[in-house]
């Protein structure tokens, strides 16, 4: 009993939703007897405006310094009660939420007594944790207003312009002598039915960035080193390039390094035969005035022979075991075929393809090409065209599956639609920024769907072809979006993180470096004297580091080992052998639990669930402790793969649970009693089923 701790417990009836099943007065009476509990109140609707103000009064009147709410679910109502205790003058981190509706009354409707017992247990667990709660606070990290844009292609220039428009400083680093990137090699670009010369676009954009007072451009520049984190980067440029010798002070970074064609070495004589070129090389020929004969015919530079037959082969080194669809090859091949036809209509053009990926109004171009007389041959996935040299002309043999027979097509110019890869500097940059990239050198975004221009770490954005091959329009959109993402902290002047963060106690730390390596957000940095430190503004509080730290010297605020242990012990205080100890992640697994509740799916009432932010927070020692205290079984539930709110927490949890099973076996516990499920927020039935299965297999029924 801690003398200075005064816990207030507020139990909600939720009309008859809770009170109709759970004997709330009994729970209230029980709560009154718990250590450190100074005040208990039953409320008809704890979330109603009246009840909330009553709660504030009670907190003040009874000098409560910890609050436990036993009601619906923290996923929807925690923010409301947090605001309320804050208004009562209490630090919101001193609130603990107990779910007795979704986890009790709605799912055990036919067993009111057991439901009441479970509600009591949950309140006891909540109080046990509440006693140990500490004040927390949102953490702010100042962010100034300089943004570094790596890459001066169309995405980078667009991003820089949008950053600069707000009055922030944008610094463009371009490794080439000219801005414009890949567009410098392209003839035209189009969107829907609009078309523009690439040179015009580049010129317009370059004019804008060059004349913008807030934009600094370093051409022929390369990065030597990047140190620091959001709001606090030091970027050193290579001495032999353009740019200042001093390190640049940078707050945010936009990566727009672009892409390049993969040279299709070894395909169809590319590299040795000048008649075999890539799409970009064809575009360069189309831009080259020397390739026009005085008669208007098309020719190779320095040649007097007109080009009469052009064969384009798509998917040359893509859609295979090593690489997927090149994303833009089909529209590019059609565009260039049409350009050849427009140049001289009697040039015969064949496009040999596998699947034509032309979406929405790109079909308009396809129809135009077909009408202009471009011939499309569809070859089988496993039977690529063969090219031979027949008395000085290239002969392409191809099987058309649409006609079911083979053709031989003569060719003066063979154009290969090749795949793309990230810029050569990607390897270097990914090391400098500690981010990841694919084998082809495309950076990995934070989330395929909801974080398309973000990196996991705050303050760095990604746009354009640095992520994957894109068309002009998409690159522009991503440039603007990336500018927005980095502008938010620059506009606010800070970034703020919730108080649920890691804290390292260096007393026992032996600098093993595991935490640094494991952190998905680069929030742990090794600072002076090789000691790890948490950059709290970057930490998301998943707890992966704490669970893995061999010296147990990392604490997660609001989810400390001590607090979780208190919950475990409280859960198993009585009749431990009838209870299933469960750890559920806040984002998906608890969502599934809530869904089972909302759907009124009935399951046996053995589980005592402990909320963690991520399943990766659960250390083996807590699982073991559960078995030591005699739990019938232990459940660890996390997000369904591949979804994880913390990128890879569930993967870390999975490997850890495997280790835990081995450890349990060694120590004489039945590893089969440790369950591990992955449950989406929509999958109430899965959670309910798991409960039923566990009850059966653990002989609890």
């Amino acid at each position, binding site marked *: 009993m801690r003398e200075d701790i005064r816990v207030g417990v507020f139990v909600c009836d939720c009309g008859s939703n809770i009170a109709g099943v759970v004997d709330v007065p009994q729970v209230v009476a029980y709560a009154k007897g718990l250590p450190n509990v100074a005040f208990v109140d039953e409320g008809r609707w704890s979330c109603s405006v009246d009840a909330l103000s009553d709660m504030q009064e009670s907190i003040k009147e009874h000098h409560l310094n910890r609050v436990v709410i036993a009601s619906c679910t923290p996923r929807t109502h925690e923010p409301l009660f947090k605001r309320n205790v804050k208004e009562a003058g209490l630090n919101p981190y001193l609130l603990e939420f107990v779910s007795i509706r979704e986890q009790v009354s709605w799912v055990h409707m036919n067993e009111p007594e057991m439901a009441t017992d479970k509600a009591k247990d949950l309140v006891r667990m909540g109080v046990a944790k509440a006693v140990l709660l500490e004040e927390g606070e949102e953490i702010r990290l100042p962010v100034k207003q300089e943004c570094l844009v790596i890459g001066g292609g169309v995405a980078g220039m667009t991003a820089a312009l949008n950053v600069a428009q707000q009055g922030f400083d944008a610094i463009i680093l371009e490794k080439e002598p000219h801005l414009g990137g890949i567009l410098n090699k392209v003839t035209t670009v189009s969107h829907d039915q609009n078309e523009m010369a690439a040179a015009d676009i580049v010129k317009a954009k370059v004019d804008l960035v060059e004349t913008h007072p807030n934009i600094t451009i370093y051409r022929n520049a390369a990065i030597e080193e990047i140190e620091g984190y959001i709001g606090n980067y030091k970027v050193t440029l290579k001495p032999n390039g353009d740019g200042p010798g001093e390190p640049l002070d940078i707050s945010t970074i936009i990566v727009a390094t672009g892409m390049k064609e993969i040279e299709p070495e070894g395909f169809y004589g590319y590299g040795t035969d000048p008649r075999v070129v890539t799409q970009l090389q064809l575009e360069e020929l189309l831009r080259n005035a020397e390739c026009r004969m005085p008669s208007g015919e098309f020719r190779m530079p320095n040649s007097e022979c007109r080009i009469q037959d052009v064969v384009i082969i798509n998917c040359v080194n893509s859609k295979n075991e090593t690489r997927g669809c090149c994303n833009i090859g089909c529209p590019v091949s059609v565009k260039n075929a049409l350009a050849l036809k427009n140049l001289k209509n009697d040039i015969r053009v064949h496009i040999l393809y596998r699947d034509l990926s032309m979406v929405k109004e790109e079909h308009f171009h396809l*129809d135009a090409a*077909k*009408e202009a*007389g471009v*011939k499309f041959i*569809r070859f089988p996935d496993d039977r690529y065209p063969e090219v031979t040299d027949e008395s000085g002309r290239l002969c392409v043999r191809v099987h*058309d599956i*649409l*006609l*079911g027979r083979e053709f031989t097509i003569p060719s003066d110019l063979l154009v290969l639609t090749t795949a793309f890869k990230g810029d050569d500097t990607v390897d270097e940059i990914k090391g400098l920024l500690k981010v990841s990239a694919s084998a082809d050198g495309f950076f990995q975004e934070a989330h395929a769907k909801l974080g398309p221009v973000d990196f996991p770490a705050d303050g760095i954005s990604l746009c354009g072809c640095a992520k994957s091959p894109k068309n002009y329009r998409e690159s522009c959109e991503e440039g603007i979006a990336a500018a927005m993402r980095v502008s938010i902290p620059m506009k606010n002047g800070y970034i703020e993180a919730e108080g649920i963060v890691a804290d390292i106690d260096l007393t026992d730390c032996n600098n093993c470096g595991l935490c640094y390596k494991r952190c998905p957000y680069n929030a742990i940095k090794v600072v002076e004297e090789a000691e790890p430190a948490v950059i709290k503004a970057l930490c998301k509080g998943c707890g992966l580091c704490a669970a893995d730290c061999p010296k147990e010297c990392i604490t997660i605020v609001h989810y400390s080992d001590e607090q979780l242990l208190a919950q475990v012990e409280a859960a198993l205080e009585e009749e431990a052998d009838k209870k299933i100890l469960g750890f559920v992640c806040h984002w998906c697994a608890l969502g599934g639990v809530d869904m089972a509740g909302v759907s009124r799916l009935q399951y046996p009432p053995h589980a005592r669930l402990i909320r963690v932010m991520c399943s990766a927070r659960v250390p083996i020692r807590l699982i073991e402790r559960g078995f030591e205290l005699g739990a019938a079984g232990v459940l660890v539930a996390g997000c369904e793969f591949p979804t994880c709110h913390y990128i890879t927490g569930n993967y870390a949890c999975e490997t850890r649970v495997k280790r835990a099973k081995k450890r349990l076996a060694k120590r004489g516990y039945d590893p089969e009693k440790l369950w591990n499920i992955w449950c989406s927020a929509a999958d109430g039935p899965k959670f309910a089923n798991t409960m039923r299965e566990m009850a059966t297999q653990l002989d609890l029924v």
Partner: protein
Amino acid sequence: MDGNLALAEKFNDVSMFRTCEQCGCCSSACPITGVNGFNVRQIVRHIELDLVDEIAETPYPWYCTTCGRCEGVCPNGIAILDVIRPLRSLSPEAFVPEGPAPCTNACPAGIDVPGYVRLIAQGRADEACQLILERVPFPGILGRVCTHPCEEACRRGDVNDAISICALKRFAADRAGSFPEGGQDVAGDTGRKVAVIGAGPAGLTAAFYLRRQGHQVTIFEASPKPGGMMRYGIPSYRLPEDVLEKEIDRILTLGIELQTGKTLGEDFDLDQLKGEGYDAVYMALGLQKSRRIELEGAELDGVFWGIDFLRDVHSGDAVTLKEKVLVVGGGNVAVDVALTALRVGARDVTLACLEGREEMPANPWEIEMVLEEGIKVMPSWGPHRITGENGRVAGIELVRCSAVFDDDGNFCPAFDDTREMVEADQVILAIGQTADLSCLESMGPFKVEKDLLVVDPGTRETDFPGIFAGGDVVTGPGTIVQAISAGREAASAMDRFLGGDGNILECRMPNAECRIKEREYDGKREKGFADLGRTESPTLPLSERHQGFPEVERCLSDDRAIMEAKRCLQCDLELALAGRGRGE
């Protein structure tokens, strides 16, 4: 490929075909994809790749039914028939189907089927009937009882179901006035006299056309009334008497003399006719007798023979049946016998035949009617013996027939040991017909093979100059339309014999070719054309069929007839269209 460009100009809009995305919608919808390797998508693919020559030199363009289903489903709105038709006009002669149209080709009488179907579609039933009369004198009769080989040949059957040609013919006949104009003209008197023996379909047809050529024609008929098998062999629930009378009257009013009750060999003979100044004789004697077999108990009271039974019923001879009747036979006559039995008192009729269900020679739609009216069919059973009590039939013992034909396809039934007794009050044996040539014995010797008269296949003449023969008595049992065809051919041959040119055709209706020249036909298919379903004739409800002999099939309504006629693919015009494309 350049050589193709000139050819490609034949296509209205080549670029349209180039926008094909080869999705396979057309070929999936096409009713004949894969039939003989046909694939409409691949035909378009040829055009797309400028391979016009290559595809034009295949027979595929002619496999197309031109139903237009492909066009209706094409997501790119490509008018695919606009590929097919120019290709047809480019295709080598060898692949061009023989004209005028498959239905007409299949018709023994060569009726211009697409022609009259088209007239019906245009609401011109009178003219349709005239067009039919150019080839046959019995539109109303054929419209009811024809076995319609035209429908088997109908290309619409490849799309979904053949056109109800027969029902449309009946519609035209029923809707036309009793004496539509045309087909009734008689040429000036040639001074020649012709005798036709037998007023069945062959005889009447021959008389009709001979009379129209200007010859004097007299028909000698043994029965009291004309019509032959049309009257005595076909029960009147299928062919009402008034229809028969009307159409025979139409023939006779051309100025043909009919003498009934005159049996050859009894009341007159051939020499006598010669003596009376007849220049030529046409013997259309038909097959008047039921085929009989040796069968134990065949002599019992209550055993009838097929044709004889039908004739007796029709003649009004009081034939009343008791409860249970067993009919032996699997042909159309057996079917008619069974259905007639139901109408003269039988309650429980069973049809037993040697053939398996699929091999039965009766037309499928006839068998369906049998089943519909509740007659039990016992396929693969042959009669073994008829059992009797007190001289009356008590039942029949059937024996299982294991095979009807031998390996060479000849009729050679084989039986196993399985037997079955079936109780019956009557047994009717309808196992075939045969000619009664006894009347000729005194006049011969006529050449006879397998009980049938033999004639010269070109001239239709017997060994005796001026004596012609035709119809069932020459060919064996056939259909009415075959008999009509025989009569027409004989009339043509006899006209030549009598000094005419043998041209009995009359083409008064505008034919397909001239329509094409007038560009009335462009082959555009209306949306949903391919999916139009066949309209069958309405039928009398089962409950009303067995009181007497009311006609079972009814005439199509005007709307339905027009709807049905509009389903026609107009193969004749398609052929002409291709010819036009070729510059013909």
